[in-house]
């Protein structure tokens, strides 16, 4: 009777056992790693889903460019960089330098005297999230003034829909006489005699009297154009038939910047107005009330009077402002706002939210946006070992459409590589976003304006409203 295993049996049994154990462990490890991979893929999918949801949230509420209740993490602007042209911002008109630091860029952006820059030294300028009623020491950013005649009223009305039948919303002008208008300069060598197409001869009449941003424009006094010479003669101060529409465009431009202007205007609104200033002599306000004022710098508008909301072939981007705008990106010349394209002119337009990127200029609006925007992680405070996810929303107006390009970038928890997806979002416009924000936030509101129903007295005032 055999009472024990033989050595050979034992060795074979041990070998078989080890093979079985090894196989089991290998199988277990494989199953375990498969689970890990599945989990990490699942985490990656969750990151993407969270990014998409966060991007749509940003599209709807614009929290990436304006924090309604402020953002302590943004020590420079409190998350409200696009409201800085108001009195209340701590950086309002603080002196500084132009070397990339935070300086007096409010002043710098509008007081350059650069050729073709828009300029009006007598007024405070706004930004996309500046409240219309935000005041300087003396007046609102966009003063509201009543008039018995609706054709001459001033100030924004959030409940007025610019109905097409209302004659005060119409443009009164002569396309022929303004299409090729350009400014006369003292150094111009162009002949000032007909048939030079670069001058507005006003053969079809003086339309400045029909519509003007001023209720009482002074006509015929512009000595810098051919039509202001002695042959034409001054007409003196006249009563313009309409001044509501032109002043609306004027104040939208200066209260919000060009993105805001075209966001607020009805489609196809002709952006030409009359009653302007002298580009070439910004330090001197001259009466040029018959000039056609284009709402962009000359090369983007090409002096056409009809840069309507369609904006064919041209994009107007909304640029966020953040501390990153002042970071030296290693190109050796300071922050984006100072150095991009090595052009002071460009810088000013970015800061003033008045830059219109075109194929002509060759300036990549995406690059500007990328270098100026603050890509906010969806989890700001997290352990370093957690995978990262950043969300950006690029906003621009192009070919008559609002375009919100959402970009989600994340670090794969599986491979450690960075990856991204992008898609177009559809949601709140700038005007909608401004109407979401309370003019005077109440405690606990998070900066959001409560809205119950139309004309409800309990509705909070928004950035578009005026204090009663």
């Amino acid at each position, binding site marked *: 009777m055999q009472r024990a295993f033989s050595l050979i049996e034992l060795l074979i049994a041990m070998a078989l056992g080890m093979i079985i154990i090894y196989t089991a462990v290998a199988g277990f490890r494989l199953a375990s790693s498969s689970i890990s991979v599945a989990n990490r893929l699942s985490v990656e999918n969750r990151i993407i889903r969270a990014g998409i949801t966060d991007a749509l949230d940003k599209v709807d509420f614009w929290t990436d460019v304006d924090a309604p209740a402020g953002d302590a993490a943004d020590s420079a602007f409190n998350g409200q960089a696009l409201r800085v042209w108001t009195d209340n911002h701590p950086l309002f008109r603080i002196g500084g330098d132009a070397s990339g630091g935070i300086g007096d860029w409010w002043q710098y952006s509008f007081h350059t005297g650069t050729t073709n820059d828009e300029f009006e030294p007598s007024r405070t300028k706004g930004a996309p999230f500046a409240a219309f009623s935000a005041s300087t020491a003396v007046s609102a950013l966009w003063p509201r003034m009543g008039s018995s005649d609706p054709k001459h009223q001033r100030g924004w009305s959030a409940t007025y829909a610019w109905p*097409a039948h209302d004659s005060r919303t119409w443009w009164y002008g002569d396309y022929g006489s303004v299409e090729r208008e350009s400014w006369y300069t003292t150094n111009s060598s162009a002949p000032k005699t007909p048939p030079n197409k670069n001058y507005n001869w006003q053969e079809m009449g003086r339309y400045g009297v029909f519509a003007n941003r001023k209720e009482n424009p002074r006509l015929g006094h512009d000595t810098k154009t051919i039509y202001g010479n002695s042959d034409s003669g001054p007409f003196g101060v006249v009563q313009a038939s309409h001044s509501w529409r032109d002043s609306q465009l004027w104040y939208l431009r200066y209260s919000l910047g060009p993105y805001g202007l075209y966001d607020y205007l009805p489609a196809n609104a002709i952006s030409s107005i009359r009653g302007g200033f002298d580009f070439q002599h910004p330090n001197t306000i001259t009466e040029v009330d018959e000039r056609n004022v284009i709402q962009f710098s000359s090369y983007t508008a090409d002096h*056409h009077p009809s840069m309507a909301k369609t904006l064919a072939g041209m994009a107007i981007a909304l640029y966020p402002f953040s501390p990153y705008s002042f970071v030296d990106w290693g190109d050796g010349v300071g922050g984006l706002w100072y150095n991009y394209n090595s052009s002071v002119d460009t810088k000013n337009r970015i800061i003033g939210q008045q830059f219109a990127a075109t194929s002509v200029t060759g300036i990549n609006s995406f690059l500007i946006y990328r270098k100026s925007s603050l890509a906010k992680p969806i989890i700001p405070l997290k352990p370093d070992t957690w995978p990262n996810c950043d969300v950006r929303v690029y906003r621009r107006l192009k*070919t008559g459409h609002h375009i919100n390009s959402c970009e989600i970038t994340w670090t794969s928890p599986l491979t450690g590589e960075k990856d991204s997806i992008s898609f177009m979002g559809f949601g709140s416009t700038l005007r909608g976003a401004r*109407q979401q924000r309370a003019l005077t936030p109440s405690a606990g509101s998070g900066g959001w304006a409560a809205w119950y129903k139309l004309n409800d007295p309990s509705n909070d005032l928004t950035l578009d409203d005026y204090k009663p």
Partner: protein
Amino acid sequence: MSRIPTVQPIRRGTVLIVVAGISALLATIALAFLLRMRADGEEVRLLIMQTQARLGLFAAAGYILEAGRIGWDNNADKPNQVHHETYGWIDVRDGFMGPKIEAYSSAVAAGRDPTTYASPNFPVGHIGRFPLEVWQRPPCALAMEQAPNAIKTEISNPSTPRSDPLYGKPYLINPDPTPVQSAGLPTGSANAAKFADWILGDRVLATATPTSSGAPIIRPESQGLGWFRIYRDGPATFVITVGGGATRGFKDWNEVVNGPWGDQSDLFGGRVFFDSLQSGEVRQWFRVEWSAAIGGIQPTRLGSQQTHGNYEYKSYKFQIQDGQRYASRGNACGTFNYFQRLRYPPVLW
């Protein structure tokens, strides 16, 4: 004679424990995997509902644009007239609230306040509720026929011999686009019925004749995914509610039973079921303002030819700017002045 060795009971128990342990381990791993996958599915479902809601926003915007201009057959202002054009939510002709077919004459308008006089269609305070479902065959469905009048040759489908009188002739014999239901002209009674059937789309017919309009036949897989709802709160402003879910746009159970659409409780079977649908649904609120401006046209070429000595003014047609590739086409139904996502549900929607 040797005995066949038998496994000791204690050894059998060990194997059992080992096998059971490994099985339990595998089962646990499998269960964890399944739970993770299920959680993923739940989260994906949430994303799908958000997507459905966003699609509802597109659909609602499209409805507002189109309903301001078309679709008001048998208008209260002018009954028995079909397919007439209307002129926007604020009528561009007289400034009264629309959509309406006829402009008010000055005599009629004299006694009415344009800011408060109710529109004959979809007046202020009206609610429209729109479950988003796909019909089996929608009204006026068109075939995906790319070339309904392709020239017939030997290699066409069907091939045509040269002796055929239609061979090689570019005849426009068939309607383009082609109706799904080839109806022909509604001259005879049979064609008329067929034509009416095509106009109505697939419906549950109350009678044998297709001219009877019944409930539309819906593709089952498209039901219960999303909806939108429109409340007109001003002359040109609307509260749009969009939903990803199966409540068909009813606000709550009370509205299902007592709402303006009558008792619709048989759609859901009971309050408990409706409440469960509502609790698992994504809902978002938006406010928009319609504008009559149509967009798309950039009349920059309406200009003067001042290079000519005689200052000839030449009126160009409205067209896109020369050299611009990215032309934007206008929308004859209007545009929107703004979209505003509402952070909280409004009082009226």
